[in-house]
Each structure stands twice: as structure tokens, then as C-alpha cells.
């Protein structure tokens, strides 16, 4: 967990969004925009406008200007970059006082990213926004949500982000909420499989000078990168095995549904780790997923195989197959086989 500066104030404009991300934790929440917006008092950490997608809210420029007029020195926007890719939009926001852009990018090419967002063209738009932000002198950070579909192809991302002037990168483990819950089988990766790929990518990013973080992963699966973990606004859960873990106090935990689905076999107590002290201000730009849809209790969580073995001693002999005969039944062979293997008895073989 990073030693933090004061957390950013977050102003959510509403939950409407022009992407349909496969892991969206807000899916299921009402989509109306927030009408009674109140800007926080200016503070050291600044303010970030979030959503949904704040870029589709016509009030954004005005709100940024108001925040600047109110004395906020650091003003960010958490965005998928689609609506903000419209010509002049980022420039207008920069003139109004925007200082940083917090962009979601889930792959290093359009095929990967657009599948995750459910929006063709969203990758190209996000890169346009990133380029415009950098050209306007804004600081840019990127979040990538770790999924089944992108963990194998994270490797090209660090170079791509570093070469485009991105100041910081965070890999987020999806929450078991919203669309990530309804599509958990398709979206939520097995942590012990996916996280090593993420850690390799973070290591590569650091070598390129791209400061990197991870959020939402249990510390025991982060090895030497545990110190890069960012805090979560809403803590996850812990398994029984975590009770004695010396690092529990600094650990993000794991979603309770994940443990119910897969068991706790991937988790193990780990020695305490030193907290990261560098780039604390940069870390504040990663404001997280915001309000999440409530957990749906009506969706079943399939139990892990270890649960099936519990009843093993009382499970009887298996039922026979539909057309099965006793092993001791009289045998049919020789000429009788013509009934089921006629081709082997035909004059010409090899014509099948």
C-alpha cells in the first residue's frame, strides 16, 4: 500500500456511459445524472470528476472552470476517452483548468480494448484523447482492468504507454460486482494465473520509467510488488487462511465470491512488506471504480471441486449408462459384427 497524500475528492456526475465494459461494476445502478452537484472545498489533493462517463456530461467544462475558480489547483477527469476525443474538447477543458486525465485502456490494440468496452472505435478514440491531453500539457495516467481476455497480452502495454508520455499506470483486479458478477465466468481471471503476467508487465513498465501500481490483488500473490498496491475505497474480504497473515493489515483481500467459487488454495500468509513511499501524489490520481452495483444474491456461485469430494464416502455405485449391458452379458462377435461394422465386411474398403 502506498504511503498516501490526502485522497482526491471525487465528484461523480452520474452513471450514464457510452461504453459497455464487460467488467463494469456499476452495471445495474440507475443511470440518471446527478443534479445537485456540490464541489468540495479546495484541498491539497484536488478534485476528480468521474461517472459513469463524465465526458458525455455537457456540464463538465463548466464544472472544471468552477472548480478552478473555487481555488482547486489539481483537477482531473476519470474517462474512457471517447466523448473527450471530439476535436477541441480536451483543449477546452485544459483552458478551463483541467490538470490531469485518468484514462481507461484495457489492451494495447483496438481488438483487445474494443472487446472489453463493447464499443468499436473506442481504442482509437482513447488514444486521441491521450494524445490531445499530452499536447495540452495535461498529466495522464492509465488504468487497465485485468481480465481473462487481456492478461496474456499485457506485455506490449508498458512500452506503448511510456512512449505516449503516460505518467503512471495501474492494473486493477475487477470487483465481483455489476457486469463482472453477471459475467464472472467470462471476465474474472483466476488470480494465480493472471497476476504473474500483470507483475511481469509492471516490472517492464518500471524499467521504462513508467511508475506502476496494482489494485485489488491479495498481497500474497504480489511477491515483491506488494508495495505497489493501491488502497481500495471499499475493502474486499479475507479467507480463513488470512487470519494469521502478518500482512493482512496492508492487504487488499479478495472478493468473498471469488473464495466461494475457487476456494482459498491460492492464498497463503506472507511476511510483512515495506510500504511504498515514492510517487504518493501520483497515486492519488487513481481514484478507483467509485460506487458499485450491490452484490446480487440471486446469482449462484458454483462451488469448487473440493466441495464435491466431501460427499464422496456416501456416494454409491454409479448409475449405468443408457444402453449399457452387464459386463458378464453374452458376447457377440465374428459375423455378427456386420450389424455394426458393415464397412469392414464390404468388398471394397477405404471408400468411406
Amino acid at each position, binding site marked *: 500500500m502506498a504511503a498516501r497524500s490526502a485522497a482526491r475528492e471525487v465528484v461523480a456526475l452520474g452513471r450514464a456511459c457510452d461504453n459497455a465494459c464487460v467488467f463494469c461494476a456499476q452495471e445495474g445502478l440507475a443511470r440518471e445524472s446527478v443534479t445537485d452537484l456540490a464541489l468540495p472545498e479546495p484541498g491539497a489533493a484536488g478534485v476528480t470528476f468521474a461517472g459513469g462517463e463524465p465526458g458525455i456530461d455537457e456540464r463538465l467544462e463548466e464544472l472544471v472552470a468552477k472548480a478552478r475558480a473555487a481555488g482547486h489547483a489539481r483537477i482531473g477527469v476519470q474517462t474512457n476517452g471517447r466523448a473527450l476525443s471530439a476535436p477541441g474538447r480536451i483543449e477546452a477543458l485544459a483552458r478551463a483548468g483541467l490538470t490531469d486525465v485518468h484514462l481507461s485502456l484495457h489492451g494495447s490494440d483496438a481488438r483487445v480494448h474494443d472487446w472489453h468496452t463493447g464499443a468499436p472505435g473506442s481504442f482509437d478514440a482513447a488514444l486521441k484523447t491521450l494524445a490531445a491531453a499530452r499536447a495540452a500539457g495535461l498529466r495522464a495516467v492509465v488504468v487497465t482492468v485485468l481480465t481473462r481476455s487481456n492478461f*496474456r497480452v499485457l506485455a506490449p502495454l508498458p512500452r506503448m504507454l511510456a512512449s505516449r508520455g503516460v505518467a503512471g499506470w495501474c492494473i486493477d483486479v475487477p470487483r465481483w460486482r455489476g457486469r463482472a458478477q453477471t459475467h464472472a465466468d467470462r471476465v474474472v481471471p483466476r488470480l494465480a494465473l493472471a497476476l504473474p503476467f500483470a507483475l511481469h508487465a509492471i516490472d517492464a513498465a518500471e524499467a521504462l520509467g513508467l511508475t506502476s501500481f496494482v489494485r485489488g490483488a491479495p498481497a500474497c500473490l504480489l511477491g515483491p510488488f506488494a508495495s505497489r498496491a493501491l488502497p481500495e475505497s471499499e475493502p474486499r474480504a479475507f479467507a480463513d487462511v488470512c487470519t494469521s497473515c502478518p500482512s493482512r493489515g496492508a492487504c487488499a483481500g479478495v472478493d468473498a465470491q471469488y473464495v466461494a467459487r475457487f476456494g482459498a488454495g491460492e492464498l497463503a500468509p506472507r511476511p510483512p512488506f515495506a510500504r511504498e513511499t515514492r510517487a504518493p501524489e501520483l497515486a492519488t490520481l487513481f481514484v478507483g471504480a467509485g460506487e458499485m452495483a450491490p452484490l446480487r444474491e440471486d446469482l449462484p456461485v458454483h462451488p469448487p*471441486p473440493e466441495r464435491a469430494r466431501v460427499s464422496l464416502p456416501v456416494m454409491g455405485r454409479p448409475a449405468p449408462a443408457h444402453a*449399457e449391458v452387464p459386463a458378464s452379458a453374452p458376447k457377440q462377435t465374428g459375423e455378427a459384427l456386420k450389424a455394426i461394422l458393415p464397412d469392414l465386411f464390404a468388398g471394397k474398403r477405404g471408400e468411406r
Partner: protein
Amino acid sequence: MANIGYLQLVRHCNQYCRFCSNPATGWMLDLDTAKRAVDDFAERGYFGVILTGGEPSLSPIVADVTRHAVGRGLHVRMITNGSRLAQPGLAASYVEAGLRHFHVSIHSCREELEDFLTGVRGSFALAMQALEQLGAAGATVNVNTVINRFNADHLDENVRYFVGRFPFISHFVWNNLDPSMGRAETNRDTAHRLADFELSLARAMRFLHKSGRSFRVERVPLCYMTEFAHCSTETRKIVKGEERIVHFLDEKGTVRQTDFRHAKSDACKACTLDSICGGLFELGEHYDLAELYPVFVPAEDIVRRIRDDA
């Protein structure tokens, strides 16, 4: 191409596996019919024949079929549960006839579970003795494992155990449960979800790969093969354009399989491996298409790797 034919010698068995895909029908091959099938494989230019069942070692014609097939230039293998091969002498006699390659079916290194899955107490111990006999006879020994609900989370524990105890085992085969036929159809408690085996299979494959051993995985879609898509049986057959013929001792009779692609989900359309992936066997009938997801690794690398192996 290395096409291989499957010959079911008998359909009865001395075990009673909970997920058996080819249970007893009462049919068995006689030597004349078996030779006809072997001749047909040879005329098609097949590489080899696999003697299977039921439990093929219960057939009295194993040695004669083997000699005939070897005489026709075919490589001969057997898929067996090993129970009969535990007795001294039988493995050596098969080897002497030219049958030198055995796939021994063992589904768990946990003795109690293996005996439960095979329906016969003591079958684990017999399988271990069979491995010893086959090793002593100098045979090539592979282990075949059906992935099912009860072993899905310890496939890695299995390979570590077998390799540790029998270092001569150089190749493993995993068959994802076929819930469409046999006893798996009537004992649905054996059926798992794909995510149940994903991690343990990946760990097992990595362990074998690191130790210089090979493996094949059948009926597992490529999104569940992590970095080992080139070891998928279906993908290899798709890339190499291979076929296989199975002579079933039941109403299905002779089946020539040339298409190894099964059902896909809409999500697969975005996947870079769609064209070389076998998809989901029995497709949504039991397995859940919602478990399939696209991956975006380059298919060309996998194709090249398979062609380089050939």
C-alpha cells in the same frame, strides 16, 4: 500427417468408472474382423492403431492383432486401466509381440479417490503395479487422465506424483470429460465447469514442460490452455489437417472424424484463436458457453509451433 485409428477390442471392463464413455455393450472383436480394420488403416496410410475398449487387455487377440498391425507397418498402442498388466509377465508378452506403447488411464494420485472413480477398490494399487511392470519391460508409458469434477483441482498434484514415482513417464494425456455419452451422461455429479480445472491444468502443463515432458489435451477450448494452445489435440488436428477413424463396438459403428470444431459462443468471434480452436465439446448441453472468452494472442505463433513439431 500422422493419422491414428482406434479399435475397440472389447466393451466389457474390469473397472466401473463413474464417467466411462464406452461402457459394456456385449460386442467384441474377433481376430478376423480386427485384421480387416487393421488392413484398412494400413491401406489409408495411417501411422498407427490404438487398441482400446472397454478394457482391451481382456481381449484374447491382443498379441495377434499387434503382430498383424506391426507386419502392416503400423505403430501399435493400447489404452488400458492397467489392472491386468499388474500381473507379472503380461506386459512383457505384449512388448514382445510389438505392443510397446501404453496409455495407462489413472485419474487421481489420491488412492481413495482413484478407487472411487474407477468403482473398484484396489485399482490404484494395481495401476501402480502396472506402471512398474511396464517400466521394467521397457515400454513407452503415458498416463491418460479424464478431467472430471472430482480431480479437476489437483491435476498438477497428479503429474508431480506420477513423475516423481515413475520418472520414465514422458507423456501425459488429459481428456476433458465427455458428458454426452456413457456413464457421464447418467452420473452428472462427475461433470465440472471449465474454470474448475483451469489453474491446476496450467500448473500441470508448466511442470511437465519444465521437466522436458510432453502432453496433449483433448476437448479443452484454447481459452483454457493458457500458453499451451499448441498442445491441444483438436488444434493440432485442425492445423495439420488430420483425421481419425474409430470403430465403435456399438450402434455408432465406424466413425471417421475429419472436423474437430465444436460449438462456440458469440464471444469466440472476437478471439484471435477462433480458426484453430476446437471450441466446446458438447457445447452448452452440459458445459456452459458462458465460460468461453476471447483471447488475443497471435494464432500464427501457435500454428508455426505445431508445424515445427511435425
